[in-house]
């Protein structure tokens, strides 16, 4: 098994606390160097916060696990410096086919939305993503990544956290101002602190397998309801990179996972599905039980939970790693402001508020997909099958077929950090929205709006030409030590400009943000809209920054 990928073994080093006996309090410890923990460390590094990142293992994820990375996740990975590597290695796919019993019901083509840097999604085995994130973290001096360092106890006080860490050379203690638990669905940190995760476990299991195809097979997503080779259940086939395909077989509840995982039981299933003549090799196999649950809140005193440690969803719709990356995106800048004393811990309550809202949306979509894929009653099955029979000929039927809804970011429209509109705007860039990308030029070179956004508060100022901007007022936007950096978005090209500037060559940014000359958008460090107005008003902008940082 495992032919296409060689697992890296990362070097374990003796911890300085053991080697030299020294020990100092660190600002932040992140536990778990999976995709979310690594993202968290890179986000904090962009904020200038040193991070101690601990992982009990010394390699990347075994088996593909997370497969599909959606546009918002790719945009976040761009900010962390690994977006290009993921997109270059990943597989883009547009065509999805849905089968019911013997035949194809319909297919769809998710043509990428034009004029965005990143596509709707790419497929890539999780181990590649982790490898790229580890490589990136290794270049950052602020990230101290320690393999084979396992946290075995945790206690917290009002001012910090104390951890005991076990290594091959013995134990040591670490004190930190803040602990971020990115230690997965079974989160040992959560358990050690006696915290609960609430929700339901679906009475269903899926067998997931990575298969290497010897022959060409299209880069498409195939989903079967009740196929002849696996009656009464569902099956998903999805292309990954290196000719590896991911197959998910629904097993039902009355099966023995250990028995089902055996190659002699897995291989006949795949043969039945592909037809006997197609050559393949099994790389990895696992059994997955659906869980849809989350913690009541994601911050507990000095401990913050991100990713699967905080919330778990069913795999259909790619909401695990995608939503975990958005947790990191949301938390990094907030923790920085709290560490610097520029915001109170209330700002971390807003991390929980906003990401619980997003988790609930993800749980809802994931539960709906699960209810469609695995009907729980005769009536539910009858409706499901009726929709599939209508989908062949009728568009409305297709829109109701739910074999997983692709992860899209939450619009945090109810967030207490937003300043409600007082001016009229159309379109979807309302306060709380994740920024839409747009093609722009910077210094005459083609690029993207999102490449000029992120990591600090910014004010996008839409102008006909840069000369009309009030350079003095725009360069003095600061409140309580939090600067707001202007970003002029100009309809005409300009060279000499004292302020950061991009050229909205085709007017697409102005169109997507529904702006007129003089319109301004206050943007959070995580590329979300905080507020917007039809004209510049420094007092209103600074009040909105205060609101977006819980300082009012």
């Amino acid at each position, binding site marked *: 098994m495992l032919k296409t990928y060689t697992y890296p073994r990362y070097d374990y080093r003796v911890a300085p606390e053991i080697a030299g006996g020294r020990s100092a309090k660190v600002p932040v410890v992140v536990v778990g160097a999976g995709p979310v923990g690594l993202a968290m460390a890179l986000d904090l590094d962009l904020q200038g916060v040193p991070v101690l990142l601990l992982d009990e293992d010394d390699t990347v994820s075994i088996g593909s696990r997370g497969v599909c990375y959606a546009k918002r996740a790719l945009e976040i990975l761009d900010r962390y410096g690994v977006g290009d590597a993921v997109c270059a290695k990943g597989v883009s796919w547009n065509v999805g086919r849905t089968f019911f019993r013997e035949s194809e019901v319909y297919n769809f083509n998710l043509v990428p939305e034009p004029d965005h840097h990143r596509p709707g999604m790419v497929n890539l085995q999780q181990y590649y993503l982790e490898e790229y994130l580890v490589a990136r973290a290794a270049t950052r001096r602020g990230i101290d990544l320690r393999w084979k360092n396992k946290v075995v106890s945790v206690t917290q006080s009002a001012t910090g956290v104390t951890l005991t860490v076990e290594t091959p050379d013995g134990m040591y203690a670490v004190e930190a101002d803040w602990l971020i638990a990115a230690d997965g669905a079974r989160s040992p940190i959560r358990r050690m602190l006696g915290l609960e995760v609430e929700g339901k476990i679906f009475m269903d299991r899926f067998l997931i397998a990575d298969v290497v195809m010897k022959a060409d097979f299209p880069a498409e997503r195939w989903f079967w309801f009740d196929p002849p080779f696996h009656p009464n259940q569902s099956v998903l086939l999805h292309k990954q990179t290196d000719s590896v395909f991911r197959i998910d077989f629904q097993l039902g509840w009355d099966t023995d996972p250990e028995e089902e995982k055996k190659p002699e039981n897995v291989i006949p299933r795949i043969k039945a599905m592909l037809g006997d003549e197609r050559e393949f090799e099994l790389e990895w196999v696992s059994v997955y039980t659906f869980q849809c649950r989350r913690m009541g809140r994601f911050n507990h005193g000095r401990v913050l939970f991100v990713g699967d440690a905080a919330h778990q969803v069913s795999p259909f719709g790619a909401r695990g790693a995608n939503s975990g990356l958005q947790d990191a995106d949301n938390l990094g800048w907030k923790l920085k402001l709290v560490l610097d004393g520029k915001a109170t811990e209330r700002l971390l309550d807003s991390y929980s508020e906003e990401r619980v809202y997003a988790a609930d949306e993800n749980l809802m979509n994931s539960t709906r997909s699960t209810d469609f894929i695995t009907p729980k009653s005769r009536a539910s099955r009858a*409706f499901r099958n009726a929709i599939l029979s209508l989908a062949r000929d009728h568009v409305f039927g297709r829109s109701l077929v739910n074999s997983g809804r692709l992860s899209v970011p939450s619009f945090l429209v109810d967030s207490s950090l937003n300043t409600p509109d007082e001016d009229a705007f159309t379109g979807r860039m309302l306060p709380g929205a994740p920024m839409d990308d747009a093609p722009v030029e910077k210094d005459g070179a083609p690029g993207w709006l999102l490449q000029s956004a992120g990591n600090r508060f910014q004010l996008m100022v839409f102008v006909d030409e840069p000369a009309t901007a009030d350079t003095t007022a725009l360069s003095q936007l600061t409140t309580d030590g939090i600067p707001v950096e202007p970003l002029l978005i100009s309809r005409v090209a300009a060279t000499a400009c004292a302020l950061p500037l991009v050229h909205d060559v085709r007017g697409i940014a102005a169109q997507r943000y529904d702006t007129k000359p003089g319109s301004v958008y206050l943007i959070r460090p995580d590329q979300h809209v905080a507020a917007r107005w039809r004209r510049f008003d420094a007092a209103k902008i600074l009040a909105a920054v205060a609101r977006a940082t819980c300082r009012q």
Partner: protein
Amino acid sequence: MALNLNPNFSEAGKRYFSAYSPGDDFYELLIGAHRDLSDEQSELLNARLILLLANHIGDIAMLREALAIAREGV
């Protein structure tokens, strides 16, 4: 007016950010209405629902078209 066979769900005052959301909202309501019912009770619920909706639509030509399409696929 012909029978509308395009996606047509929406709720007044609700803002959608994904095309699939209104249809999924409806489907969850529909399946939720059947929760904890026996098969017989579910059949009765479905029959009552069809009658309520048919009366609301009222236009018999349209109902005839819907019945024909529904029957084709059975």
